[in-house]
């Protein structure tokens, strides 16, 4: 019995040495270090054609839209490869909404509602001017439909007029004179 005990001790000692003698070499990764960086909108590229967000930022008539896209956290989304068709209401269009509407939408607690409205202005796919057929429906990012209008070359989306269109690297921007409100 004694000899068996000694045997066990010896083997146990050996195992102990084997497992501990190298010391704690491995440390777990530092959980406090956050390696996530900014999104695609931070890519430095002044050579490529402008994407839809840069088109909007470059237009003085769209500062409200740009502020709203930022508040809704949609900048990185709209910088994506897309492609997107963006219906871009002018500042005047936002100003035509009942007083206080825009300020209210820009409040953090209304972010979801703001996103819903902005996503109603975006279609995934490129609808250039020559593809705007009267009565054609587009299912927007918020999953609600808009209806395109084309009456003798006068282009519309729902009840908004399309004032002009700008090609972007990742889609097209149609400037409109009314904010589209999902029903």
């Amino acid at each position: 019995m004694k000899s068996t005990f000694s045997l066990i001790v010896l083997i146990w000692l050996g195992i102990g040495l084997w497992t501990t003698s190298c010391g704690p070499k491995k440390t777990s990764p530092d959980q406090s270090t956050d390696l996530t960086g900014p999104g695609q909108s931070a890519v430095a590229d002044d050579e490529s054609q402008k994407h839809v967000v840069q088109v909007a930022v470059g237009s003085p008539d769209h500062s409200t839209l740009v502020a709203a896209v930022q508040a809704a956290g949609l900048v990185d989304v709209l910088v994506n490869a897309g492609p997107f068709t963006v219906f871009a209401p002018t500042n005047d269009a936002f100003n035509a909404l009942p007083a206080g509407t825009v300020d209210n939408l820009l409040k953090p607690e209304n972010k979801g509602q703001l996103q819903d409205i902005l996503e109603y202005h975006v279609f995934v796919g490129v609808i250039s001017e020559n593809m705007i057929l009267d009565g054609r429906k587009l299912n927007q990012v918020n999953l609600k439909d808009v209806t395109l209008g084309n009456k003798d070359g006068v282009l519309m989306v729902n009840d908004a007029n399309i004032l002009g269109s700008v090609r972007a690297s990742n889609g097209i921007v149609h400037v409109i004179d009314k904010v589209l409100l999902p029903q």
Partner: protein
Amino acid sequence: MNNKLIFKYAGAFLLFIIMAQFSCKPTAPGSVSTGDAATRVYVPPGQHDEFYNIVSGGFNGQMSVVGLPSGRVFKILPVFSVHPENGYGYSEESKPMLNTSHGFVPWDDLHHIAISTTNGVHDGRWAFGNANNTPRIARVDLSTFKTVEILEIPNSAGNHSSPFITENTEYVVASSRFSVPLGSEQDRDVPIDTYKENFKGTVSFVKVSDEGEMSIAFQLVTPGVNFDLARAGKGPSHGWFFFSCYNTEQAYSLLEVNASQRDKDFIMAVNWKKAEEYIAAGKGKMVKAKYAHNKEDKRTHTTTSTILEEVLQLDPKELKDIIYFIPCPKSPHGCDVDPTGRFIVGSGKLAALVPVFSFEKIMKAIDDGDFEGEYDGIPVVRYESALHGVVEKAGLGPLHTEFDNNGNAYTSFFVSSEVVKWNVNTLEVLDRVPTYYSVGHLMVPGGATAAPHGKYLVAYNKITKDRYLPTGPELCHSAQLYDISGDKMRLLLDFPTIGEPHYAEAIPASMIKDQSVKFYRIEDNEHPYAVKREMDAKVERNGNQVHVYMSSIRSHFAPDNIEGVRVGDEVYFHVTNLEQDWDVPHGFAIKGANTGELLIMPGETQTLKWKPEKVGIYPFYCTDFCSALHQEMQGYLRVSPANSNVPLKFTLDMILQ
């Protein structure tokens, strides 16, 4: 205690000893990664590496673009081998790049890299690579990381000692590993055992113009030995080029034995300025040759192959003072010139010592006529007179030497699987580290130039065995990154490579990353079949040739419905990517095509040739996930019988009709 008990105790004790023994040892040879090694090679997400490492791919025929210190692979850059990934060698525009006097050759063995230099220092314009099998030199543009030119080398076989370059990229060289008979068909059809009389080596000096265009300036016809590696002189030795040669025995069978008979072979010193003088004086003779020169036109992204008919040859036996032989022990492989240009290191791969020659001493010996004889009509400089000294007992099987910025050299030893650091002046061995396993080339960023960066050293190994997770009998090759900033070399990282890495070079990322082209400007596209506006897309028939002028943009092709194609037609899809955005290639593939796919960069036009052989509807689609509607990026082509009257028709919904 009975015997049984003693045996038990002894067994347990032995187990104890064994466990204690191995408990602190690495579990595999070479697992020494400790301390801050991980952080030294760690490039955090979103950050860039410090160096571009352009690594040869050996029998894969490509170069790899690798980041250092991370070891991450950014690109497999096809050079001499077709590349399904991007259609290189499959598109009509790129096929001529692989044309040779032997026709289309879709493969080669790329061994060495030379990044262009100005005043002996990397300038970041081009990287050159050699084709070992069907002798060629390629030039890669480092703003597009694309092969833009390939020049075939006539009168050569086994273009191993290539594409090393002179200080200001005046020349890249190509010299023959295999001597062969030259001349007319009759001259070349000789018994192999007439090697000594009939077989010759050649060393070609390829001129590089300011725009990079290559042309063979002259060829030296040399005794029939095997040239192995080469380096240009620099600084004081600018104007000279040094080539290692083995098989001075002129064996032509069982070289393993018969080419190792002499105790010394040669380093061949070439005075290329002298050769220029002879050419200026009208010496040398134009001989018939047939070789391909393939160059891409930047405006059309299309390569044209031209077959050239003659080459200027110089015979150094008649035109004295161009070449000299310097004895070098035991089948030298590496032949490396230190950053000062004063010393030439020969590495006799069967020797245990490393001879270092002095350029000044070589010049003096030549001036003094201090020769020990002639070899096939060429003067042989006395060994002792050329020698700066010898690194004694450095290791076994020295192959290649690179240099740092502190006067030290690093030599790889294949047989003893190690890198040995030694001082060029004192020839004293300073340090040695193992490699895993059987190292070939070494690379210090800028280590072949007049200004090495001397921070890292990479060993490119030939044998991998247990280094990584096994993948059956065929394993990747391994590379090891060492920190050489201190007195002692320190292993930091072990990483797999693509193909077989031979020589590599590295250049600071800051020198080239800002010149990297993001896309091609559509307004600069002069391809004859380019479609610059979607509305201009069309299909034309010319006899049995059908040309599809197609555009692609997120997320459709124009046209995407094509009818009126017949069995037996030759259909050319000329696809222009209309995007003007960074990193938005579109692909193109059609069912049954027995070529490959196209991968078209923004602003570029590429062409796929397709011969439909069966009636039916053939889908085509974009092969590169380009956008959220990538899966919608498709089209149909109708193939009718050969005698069909279906009219040619091409549409895109209501946009194009």
